[in-house]
């Protein structure tokens, strides 16, 4: 079995330049068949560029793009077994909703029977909750409705690979959850490979099999969601995905020395200056006297979130930490007030050290 039997999309050392601007640099990425991959990264990091090279709207300046076994660098967009939901929708203004959605099916040869087309269009519109909107013109729709038409127009074709560029960004929470579930079952039922760009981390972590974190045109980490969250490849990923507390430390045999001279026990092999990263939920606070954590500070701020409370805690000479505390609703006195002195403890296995 060759590698391409396993992969639906592959980037091999792909670099894309627009004039002097290098949008993506030396990307290597292999998306397994039928996988749901989320593309995550700050604005302008090259996510859309990657999708556009798969869709066939940009050619790599260097390197090769493969779809299945085929090198597609020179394959025009209309010959690629790929459909895309565009970030800007790109709906056809002179066609109504139904004809927009039917567009892809009408291009297929051999021709699809027209009652088959209207059946599939109806099903797609139902999936995006737009049954009854078929005769509307595009400009008669709200932004969120347009986005769903864009989604329907792509999924109705049941392509081998579906590229989704922030396909749910304009939807309210309820609709978005509905669409997420629909997309997931669609992906599972049809075995379509999904490549989804999103700025919603929850969406990325909850829906995908694999998360690809990008920054400044490079891939920082490509791994399962849990792996990305628990073991970020570098400080950027740690910072970008979820919330992270960082402090500069010096690693010495057996200890980590903090800025204020305090030390934390440490068993790792690293030595020298480093940055320590710790998730808010891996830290615990207790009123001074009731707990005996290695660090002492005072609460500067509290955000009450119902089942959780988030505290900002200032530690002299080290900095400000964000700590989230689970509430069990038994103790009426569990909330710590700003100004109170607290001791801080943490789960030592959750510590990640990165080169400074």
């Amino acid at each position, binding site marked *: 079995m060759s590698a391409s039997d396993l992969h639906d999309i592959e980037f091999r050392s792909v670099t894309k330049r627009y004039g002097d601007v290098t949008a993506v640099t030396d990307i290597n990425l292999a998306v397994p068949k039928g996988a749901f991959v989320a593309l995550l990264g700050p604005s302008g990091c090259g996510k859309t560029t990657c999708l556009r090279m798969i869709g066939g*709207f940009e050619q790599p300046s260097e390197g090769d793009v493969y779809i299945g076994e085929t090198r597609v660098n020179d394959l025009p967009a209309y010959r690629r077994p790929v459909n*895309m939901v565009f970030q800007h929708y*790109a709906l*056809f*203004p*002179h066609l109504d909703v139904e004809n927009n959605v039917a*567009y892809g099916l009408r291009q297929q040869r051999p021709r699809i029977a027209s009652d088959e087309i209207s059946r599939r269009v109806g099903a797609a519109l139902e999936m995006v909750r737009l049954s009854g909107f078929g005769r509307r*013109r595009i400009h008669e729709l709200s932004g969120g409705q347009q986005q769903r038409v864009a989604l329907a127009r792509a999924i109705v074709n049941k392509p081998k690979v579906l590229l989704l560029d922030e396909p749910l960004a304009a939807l309210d929470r309820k609709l978005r959850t509905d669409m997420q579930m629909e997309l997931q079952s669609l992906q599972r039922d049809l075995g379509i490979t999904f490549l989804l760009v999103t700025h919603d981390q929850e969406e990325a972590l909850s829906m995908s099999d694999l998360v690809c974190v990008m920054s400044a045109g490079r891939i920082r980490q490509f791994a399962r969601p849990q792996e990305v969250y628990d073991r970020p490849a570098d400080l950027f990923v740690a910072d970008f995905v979820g919330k992270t507390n960082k402090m500069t430390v010096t690693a010495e045999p057996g200890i980590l020395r903090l800025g204020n001279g305090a030390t934390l026990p440490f068993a790792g092999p690293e030595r020298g200056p480093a940055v320590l990263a710790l998730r808010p939920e891996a830290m615990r606070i207790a009123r001074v006297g009731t707990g005996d954590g290695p660090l002492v500070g005072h609460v500067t701020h509290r955000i009450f979130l119902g089942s959780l409370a988030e505290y900002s805690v200032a530690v002299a000479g080290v900095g400000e930490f964000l700590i989230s505390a689970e509430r069990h609703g038994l103790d009426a006195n569990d909330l710590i007030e700003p100004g109170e002195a607290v001791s801080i403890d943490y789960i030592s296995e959750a510590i990640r050290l990165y080169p400074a």
Partner: protein
Amino acid sequence: MAMTLATRKRLVTALLVGPSAAWLSIFLVLPFIAILVFSVGERAPEGGYQAAFTFAQFMNLPARATAFWNTMLLAPVGAILCLLVAYPTAYYLAIRAPTRFRMLLVSLVVVPFWTSLLVRTYAWIFILGARGLPNLLALIGLPDVRLLNTPGAVLLGIVYGYLPLMIMPIYVSLEKLDRRLLEASADLGASPVRSFFNITLPLSLPGVATGVALVTILLLGEYLIPQLLGGGKVFFIGNALVDLFLQSRNWPYGSAIAVTLVSVVVLIITLAMRLAWRFAGTRQVDLV
């Protein structure tokens, strides 16, 4: 004094429309009323107009039927020929031409307007005349080819003279076409040719309609080209009007013809507009 928003809006509208409305009512509506009045009058014995109320002039229209049919046939045919030549040019300029040269190329389209159409049409008399192209054709064994003073010559002159007017509106509508729609079309499996017929062409129809309407309407009143290149044979209504007003001084008859012409033009505009809207729908293209 505070103005309500509605009053302000009305004032702005008045300021915007006012000048052209005033100009048109003085220089277009008034003369047209005069023509209407003339058309139901009688020719004074010494020429010109004398008051009366009769439709006799309209009864006489068939006498100029040839000019009428020439115009009605050659104006739209000329406009369509213009369209066929103009569309690919406009398409190239708007979609294919390198961005750096686009403005230069577009301005080249209007360069011919720097010289009078009269002069340029005169040039064609020499090219098409016996000592021009036919002379050359005779050299290669095609004697006695007549080019000048034929409908073909008139059509050639029409396409030549009106091409820029057709290119411009089509160019504008193609230029503002959202290229991303073509990407979407390709993404959905449409070849470039099909994308053209499914997306580009329908979305450029407003420009096509504008161009065809503009050129057709101007051609309906065309005088110069049929006069110079059509000789006495291919008379347009425009030539008939010149003849009636300036030569035989039959103002009422000329007016009746003019009124008929204007009515036909208005009818054509209305139909063309209807069609354009039907095909292209509203022109809102900006999404997001």
